[in-house]
């Protein structure tokens, strides 16, 4: 029993901290205190994750499973939450939504993500998904007086509920086919009795629910509107943390059913087709956007496509590539959204033309944005390149060279719209005089940018960690 607590220490710590935050916020109603308290919370949870990092195994009647994958994923969620918390102030103040609840909701949503990453049972997976999503629905609609924010929340909520329905129905069918809810138990039953059509239908529905969360084509339609309408820091959080959590869930499902999925042509070609569709639709649609937030939304669809290439490749190589990619993607995408948020808080619009001449006024912000854009475009020696390299290498290793080729060509298209941002910032003169202040948040972003450069040049240790995580994760 004590061991159970130890194994799920990060989740329990997070739960306790959420309660603490709610109580403090209710009693004091001082958002600044809630903010710093939640930052302390991130540090405490991170410390507890470090403490149990080497621990593996099931806890609480095989409901939760701690593994290196889930610990690693926890770091990604915490990183995403912490960075967003650090850069939100100015934006929230400007939009008059500076509520303590903002931070509480973010923390609750991270709790859901952690449950998703360490779920050993499909019921826990569902609880995690819902915990995360409901908090995100609220974050999307935080700007109550803004019509677009309302629309975003409504759209996200309605479509998200549909996706949850699919997900739940999938769980029911898999349960019907195998009589089990725990993932590893299902594997045992499948090995004994083989797969049935019912199981495959169930698995497809389950995956649709998760593909919705990563906004893979054709389940992506909500993404641009929601990202555009939601408060920008919240969009940054949704596009990174939530996506990483959904990918962690996909990996945990796919690696549990590895015996059935590996070498299954239907599965890998279905995922490959979705990956191709996401890469093409995301990149081509991003080309024609005039609005930066919408461009980033479509680009996040494209990036989901790249990560799905790793899932389609399957095997330890593909999965560890995806895990590394989630970390890199979190850093660079949060970075990009944060720059948008900071500039929005300074009164700048979010279309390309509004960014003209930013370099002159704030070389630091323009410089870090250039690093984020180049990394998203996948130029070495930045981390985004290593991420793409790993997923494409996994695809070629799995004999899917065509998929890698489509991937690289799609990513060549993407360079155009990332460069457009830089053209505006560095090479155009502003229409009207800009008045920008460089706030403390810019320093956070400089650190994120530095991390991207360092992860690109010295990725070795992190890569070792991700491949070790998968190795251990595959062990029964």
């Amino acid at each position, binding site marked *: 029993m004590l061991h159970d607590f130890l194994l799920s220490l990060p989740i329990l710590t997070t739960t306790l901290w959420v309660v603490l935050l709610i109580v403090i916020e209710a009693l004091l109603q001082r958002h600044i205190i809630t903010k710093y308290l939640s930052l302390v919370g991130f540090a405490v949870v991170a410390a507890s994750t470090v403490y149990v990092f080497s621990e593996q195994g099931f806890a609480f009647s095989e409901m939760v499973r701690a593994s290196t994958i889930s610990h690693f994923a926890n770091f990604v969620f915490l990183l995403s939450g912490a960075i967003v918390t650090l850069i939100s102030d100015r934006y929230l103040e400007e939009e008059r939504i500076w509520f303590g609840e903002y931070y509480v909701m973010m923390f609750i949503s991270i709790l859901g993500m952690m449950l998703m990453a360490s779920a050993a049972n499909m019921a826990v997976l569902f609880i995690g998904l819902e915990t995360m999503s409901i908090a995100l629905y609220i974050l999307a609609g935080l700007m109550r007086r803004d019509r677009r924010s309302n629309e975003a929340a409504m759209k996200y909520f309605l479509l998200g509920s549909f996706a949850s329905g699919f997900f739940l129905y999938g769980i029911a069918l898999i349960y019907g086919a195998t009589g089990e809810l725990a993932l590893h138990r299902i594997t045992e039953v499948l090995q004994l009795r083989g797969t049935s059509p019912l199981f495959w239908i169930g698995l497809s529905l389950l995956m649709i629910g998760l593909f919705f969360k990563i906004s893979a084509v054709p389940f992506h339609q909500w993404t641009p509107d929601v990202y555009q309408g939601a408060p920008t820091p919240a969009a940054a959080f949704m596009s990174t943390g939530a996506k990483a959590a959904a990918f962690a869930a996909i990996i945990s499902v796919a690696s549990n059913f590895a015996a059935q999925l590996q070498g299954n042509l239907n599965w890998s070609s279905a995922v490959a087709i979705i990956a191709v569709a996401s890469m093409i639709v995301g990149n081509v649609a991003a080309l024609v956007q005039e609005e930066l937030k919408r461009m980033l939304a479509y680009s996040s669809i494209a990036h989901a496509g790249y990560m799905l290439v790793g899932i389609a490749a399957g095997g330890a190589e593909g999965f560890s590539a995806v895990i590394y990619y989630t970390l890199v993607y979190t850093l660079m995408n949060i970075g990009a959204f944060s720059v948008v948020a900071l500039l929005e808080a300074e009164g700048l619009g979010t279309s390309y033309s509004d960014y003209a001449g930013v370099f002159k006024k704030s070389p630091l912000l323009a410089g870090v944005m250039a690093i984020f854009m*180049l990394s998203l475009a996948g130029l070495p020696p930045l981390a985004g390149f290593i991420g793409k390299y790993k997923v494409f*290498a996994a695809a*070629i*290793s799995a004999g899917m060279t065509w998929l890698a080729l489509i991937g690289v060509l799609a990513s060549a298209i993407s*360079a*155009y719209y990332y*460069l457009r941002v830089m053209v505006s910032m560095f*090479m155009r003169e502003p229409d009207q005089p800009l008045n920008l202040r460089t706030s403390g948040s810019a320093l956070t972003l400089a650190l994120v940018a530095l991390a991207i450069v360092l992860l690109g040049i010295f990725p070795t240790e992190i890569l070792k960690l991700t*491949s070790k995580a998968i190795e251990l994760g595959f062990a029964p």
Partner: protein
Amino acid sequence: MILTITIFLPFLASFLLFAFARAERFAKLYAVLVTLVTFGLGLFLALNFNAEAGFQFQHVALEQWLGSSADIKYSVALDGLSLALFVFATFMFMLGALASWSVEKSVCEYFFFLLMLETCILGIFAATDLFLYYIFWEAMLIPMYFLIGMWGGARRAEAATKFVLYMLTASLVMLVGVIYVGYMGREVNGGIFTTDYQKLLALRLPFDVEQILFWIFGLSFFVKSPLFPLHTWAADVYSESPTGAVLTGVLLKMAPYALVRFNLMLFPEASLSYAPLIGVLAVITVLYGASVAAAQRQMKRLLAFSSVSHLGFLILGIFAFSEESLQGVILYMLGSGLSTGLLFLIVAKLEQDYGSKDMHDYGGLKKTMPLAASAFLVAAMASVGLPGLSGFVGEFLILIGAFKSQALGTGLYASLSAIGVILAVVYMLPLTQRLFFGEMRQALSQLRDFNLREAVIATTMILAMLWLGLMPNSVLKFSASSSRATIEHLKAMPKQAERTQRF
């Protein structure tokens, strides 16, 4: 270790530039000093180079860079072929930095990117790991993008975007090739993915795989070269680029170098079987580049197309598969870099001082600018291949090699591209005449001749041209054994007996 220091010195030193943000003259001085020290280190490497041995100054670090499942590492070394280009690059960057003294906008950033570019290019010439090579090759786009986009001409943003998109598309395809070769390399590396160049040399690929890889890699290099019909980016980028001299001097040499280093060495059989086809494209490039150059009124575009024409010669020399032509290629790379580089510098000065790109707006400048006029004349002569100057020996060796090349099969290639030499006179002499002789317009009298700094640059480059022209062996002796080794490697490789017959 000394090699690694030389490569990264410019980039690491460049961060200090921002300390001089308020004293821009010091920033310039500092940047020039850094390139000077780098050049000194390059000379040091050349003096300690053993012309008989293969790869030298090897430095390996970061083993298992991307985890234990792949043999990827930081590995640099120089052989005869790369040494010549490496030292030449340090030389050109020194002059490039000096020539950029006139930059006034965002000085620190400009030199930051220039020094970053130097590191990338030195890395390209020194990398002996395919993956590392790819990183430098792509990273080069970042400083180039900013240099063109922020300090270029009026249509700079479009030119910069065009440049990156062309290069990125081509080289991303190469990335697939790199990974593919790496997986192929497993058989020579005990079942582990490898991008180690030395190990990959021992690889025996099936012919059809070789063909695919030849084109995957080739596409990237042919775009960069630029070979007809993939040359469409070149003129725009050159005419908007602030560093035209560095661009032609060094950047364009990366692709011919890579063709020898990777396409020929790793896929010899496919290279041999496609030699006639590439030869035809090379001849077209020579003639097309020269004829389009002859029709240009814009000076920078004219020079851009003349470089395209020169590149055709280089590629013809590479695919002639003979020792002479390979030696000629190395010499010609340096020679055309110097002559076109100097022409670019002078034209850029005229454009900057007078504001017109059209050569018909100039005339009779010899009176006010005697120094520039004579420098231009020398460079133009070197560019059309006058004996005694840098262009001649290289051109001569390439044509000899191509004439008796068995891979190409016929001397027709050489004969046709020799017409390119004549065409070069057709566009280069009128340009010289138009600019410096004849009637001078009143408005032009404000143009001033070289100042001391410009005179130093021009003199250095002219001395280098004379040196290459009069003592070509001082460079060729370094590359002789590498060229021989390359050709021997190619002869040894083909599996089918009848292919060896063709040498």
